[in-house]
């Protein structure tokens, strides 16, 4: 039975090394951001000045850019994603063929690489937004916070809808039948039974979408305009935490610049881990309830 013991030990070792690996991930980010943390402290997140040649690094414009684009994207995609989840959840249950096709299409949307979203946005959305800006009589950049939010919104729809759809599909059949037996219309069933039942799952879907939006890099980098100052309004160019790393990391001027970019990565990592953990807790609670 020695072979068995060795095998068991091997499995446990894999798990242990994995835990160690995640720990090292976090540690190496902290160590590498050390010089920047030491040099700027809390000023790093409240200063708006980012000047690599002068050695001044403040990340507030990028924090602002990330928060603005992510929340705008959520605002635009949530109604769409929930409609989709309700439609798919209710009608694929009733065996509607079209619902299956739609479901498949949304899955495809999730599989498109972000650089292709970026390419499409650059040559399709940017001209559209520029045309809009000319009509609205503001500086027609075309690129900027709004365009980035638009492409982000499209990208995160499948993430919000897939988990919400699963929740809708998990509503017990007898609850729905009870509602219908009482003469409730589909809308009344949705409002009084499905939505209350799925609420926490919907929150988890939003969190998942938010996590994805916060860390999304390529598509945003290609259409946000890569401007390192504070964005003046929703249509002005900007930068997000992820896009500034993508733009400047390979050509960083000096160690402090690199370390500051890594510190932005550290924040991105932490925020994502927190958003993710909260989402996991919600999903776990919901699945235990069933």
């Amino acid at each position, binding site marked *: *039975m020695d*072979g*068995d013991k*060795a*095998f068991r030990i091997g*499995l446990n070792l*894999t*798990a242990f090394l*994995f*835990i160690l690996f*995640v720990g090292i991930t976090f540690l*190496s980010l902290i160590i590498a951001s050390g010089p920047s943390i030491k040099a700027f402290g809390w000023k790093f997140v409240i200063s708006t000045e980012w000047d690599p040649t002068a050695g001044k690094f403040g990340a507030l414009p990028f924090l602002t850019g990330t928060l603005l684009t992510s929340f705008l994207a959520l605002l635009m995609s949530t*109604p*769409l*994603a929930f*409609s*989709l989840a*309700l*439609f798919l959840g209710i009608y694929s249950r009733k065996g509607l063929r079209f619902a299956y096709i739609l479901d498949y299409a*949304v*899955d*495809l*949307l999730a*599989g498109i*690489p*972000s*650089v*292709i*979203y970026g*390419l*499409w946005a*650059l*040559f*399709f959305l940017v001209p559209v937004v520029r045309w809009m800006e000319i009509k609205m009589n503001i500086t027609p950049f075309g690129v900027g916070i709004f365009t980035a939010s638009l492409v982000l919104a*499209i990208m995160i729809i499948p993430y919000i*809808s897939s988990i919400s759809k699963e929740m809708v599909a998990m509503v017990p059949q007898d609850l729905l039948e009870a509602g219908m037996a009482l003469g409730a*219309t*589909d*809308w*009344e069933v*949705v409002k009084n039974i499905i939505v209350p039942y799925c609420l926490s799952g919907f929150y988890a879907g939003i969190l998942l979408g938010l996590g994805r939006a*916060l*860390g999304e*890099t*390529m598509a945003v980098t*290609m259409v946000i305009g890569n401007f390192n100052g504070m964005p003046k309004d929703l249509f002005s160019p900007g930068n997000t935490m*992820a896009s500034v790393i*993508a733009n400047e*990391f*390979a050509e960083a001027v000096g160690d402090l610049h690199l370390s500051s970019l*890594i510190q932005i*990565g550290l924040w*991105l*990592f932490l925020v*994502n*881990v927190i*958003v*993710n*953990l909260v989402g*996991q807790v919600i999903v776990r609670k919901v699945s235990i309830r069933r």
Partner: protein
Amino acid sequence: MSTRARRIKDRIFKATILSLSLLTLLPLLLILITIISKGYSAISLDFFTKLPTPPGDPGGGILNSIVGSLLLIAIAVVISVPTGVGLGLYLSETRGPWASLVEILINTLQGIPSIVVGILAYLWIVKPLGGFSALSGGVALAIIMLPTVARATQETLIRLPTSLKEAGLSLGASYTRTIWKVILPSAMPGILSGVLLGVARIAGETAPLLFTAFGNPYLNLNPLKPVDAVPLLVFNYAMSPYSDWHQKAWGASLVLMVFILGINITIRKGPWKRR
């Protein structure tokens, strides 16, 4: 409320969710149509077999990035499949706080932005080796792929009937032998589909390659030297000011989409159907 009012409300609701659902199809259709119509004309035999030409020079292809992508994917698969299957096996064979911790960490790893994974590969491999390399890009992609493989393995193993394992053990086979000869072979279709899903995911990853694989206009098979990748080429060409490079970016996008959609369709329709 009268029945009539309720009916009207119901109609409005149905019309709203139907039209909003259809609206989500619009971007997908637009993206597919644009890629196919713009990418189609860029594609020829040369596109797959020639190296890039400078902007303005007609002809040339993306051979360097196709080879680079395959090299990166190969490195990622070699690293992530054994570790991922091992973790999945551990999770399905173990209960308790450690298993929960590993599960939570796997889910967390899946949520880490890919650009941060790129930073890690830079710190661990590019910096010590003193230069950009295919190896560092492959490691970054392996980290991104690992959770997909681990979870696919775990999910497949959990769904196998316990009678399989009992049959193996009751025939006198040792635990290890049962796992190797009975459990893993029965789980193979599920694991394979997980690996394919992971490959589909990393094939389009760009952000973690920006400062690891870096890109290379020449053909390279040395894992310690920089390589190009198809998504990286799409990014660099799209951001360039040259219209013939834009054209090639569309062509490369079409190639990438066909590859990724092909995998997705294989997983659903093939002998290793998921779910």
